């Protein structure tokens, strides 16, 4: 299936057709989800209305992790099979994943403040998400740190793979660290088991986020491919005027041979 989309032209055609559907679906699902989260879902017995933050925070956390796994998988495909679009997908996805991670951290902070009185809680999950944020930043920084774009892409792919291997180790060590330093009260940003009335809007928001991610990813990938093609055209020109360009650059002898 992947090889069918290796052709950038075909990808552009298919993604161009799919784009408006993703966008419309994302808008519709998010609209439903927002109304549900903000108005229909009941307040929590203990946390009151502040529990509505969970409807943003938890789906954002799910997205931040899933997108990183996507970046890692795309990087593996890029390194092992040299699929031409895999690197583009990984590089397009990373900033979106970082944005979800940032939202997760900020909403986690806003959720924790009324509950535990501090703006930052070194809760095991929030801490893991913080490290994930740095994994994203490292990937993005590394890809953009080289003048040679291919070198940056390949280094980034390798870093993503190293990161995904490291991820369960980080999760384990952060959980370990958290239980060591656990104060008397259990500081968990999850609360008790979620009732169905809260689970449904959560899932709707999650689906909405996924559709939005899909739309943003295709948008970004298409932009990258357009920009690369434009750059190639500017540098090398169309076949029709390549001869003139060669003549201008190297002098007559070479062009006429």
């Amino acid at each position, binding site marked *: 299936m992947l090889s069918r989309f290796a052709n950038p032209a075909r990808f552009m055609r298919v993604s161009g057709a799919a784009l408006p559907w993703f966008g419309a679906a994302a808008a519709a699902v998010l609209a439903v989800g927002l109304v549900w989260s903000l108005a229909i879902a009941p307040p929590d017995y203990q946390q009151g209305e502040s529990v509505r933050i969970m409807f943003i925070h938890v789906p954002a956390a799910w997205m931040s992790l899933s997108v990183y796994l996507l970046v890692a998988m795309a990087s593996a495909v890029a390194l092992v099979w040299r699929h031409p679009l895999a690197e583009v997908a990984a590089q397009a996805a990373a900033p979106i994943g970082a944005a979800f991670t940032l939202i997760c951290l900020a909403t986690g902070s806003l959720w924790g403040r009324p509950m535990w009185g501090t703006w930052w809680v070194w809760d095991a999950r929030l801490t893991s998400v913080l490290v994930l944020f740095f994994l994203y930043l*490292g990937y993005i920084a590394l890809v953009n740190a*080289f003048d040679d774009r291919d070198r940056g892409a*390949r280094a980034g792919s390798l870093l993503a793979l*190293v990161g995904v291997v490291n991820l369960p180790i*980080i999760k384990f060590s952060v959980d370990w660290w958290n239980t*060591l330093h656990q104060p008397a009260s259990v500081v968990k940003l999850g609360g008790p088991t979620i009732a169905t009335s809260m689970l449904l809007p959560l899932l709707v928001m999650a689906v909405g986020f996924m559709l939005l991610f899909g739309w943003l990813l295709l948008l970004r990938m298409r932009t990258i491919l357009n920009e690369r093609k434009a750059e190639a055209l500017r540098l090398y020109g169309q076949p029709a005027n390549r001869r003139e360009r060669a003549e201008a650059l190297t002098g007559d002898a070479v062009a006429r041979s």
Partner: protein
Amino acid sequence: MAAFLGLFRRDLRLALRQGGEVGLVLGFFTLAVLLFPFGVGPEPELLDRIAGGIIWVAALLAAVLSLDRLFAADHADGGLDLIALSPLPLELSALAKIMAHWVTTGLPLTVISPLLALFVNLDPEGIPVLTLGLLLGTPALSLLGGIAAALTLGARRPGVLVSLVVLPLYLPPLIFGSGAVEASLTGDGAYAHLLLLGAVTLAALPLAPLATAAALRQALD
């Protein structure tokens, strides 16, 4: 084997010849540790509580500082190309260089850590665990640091980039190493922590050279 040892000895000689390499690492480590009492106050109980963490964080920072000399000089003058062309597999060459790096970085840090522990009021009970932990964990710092150093070869502003890339890799050794010291002080027993620390190093031993060599090949292409 001879080629492996040859590369190891060559890197060791280069680092020691300049003398300043080891001195820089030890100097930074010492300074970083000594700054903390000025920062948090000299109260003995407080320092004792955070001593393990202070020394481990300082060791981490000193390790990060020393990473740029692992591959950068050889990459710049073409030595890395020669190493890659030699019959010794690149993974083993990377391991030889990383081992030499550890002998001139992690090992000296481990040796002077008991002395520095005195300055941060670490309970004498905690010193053996601290030293053993550093002995088990600093090889991991060199191994994992090698991956980051290789990935950032030829990058613009590699210094900041290496720190950012290596930070998530260094978290587990930090957590287990400083946790071990704290556990020994509270009487909980540091065994589990040290075991996990050892596991990290053992896992890194075959895997890190693989990733490092892959990164080196990308840099040399």
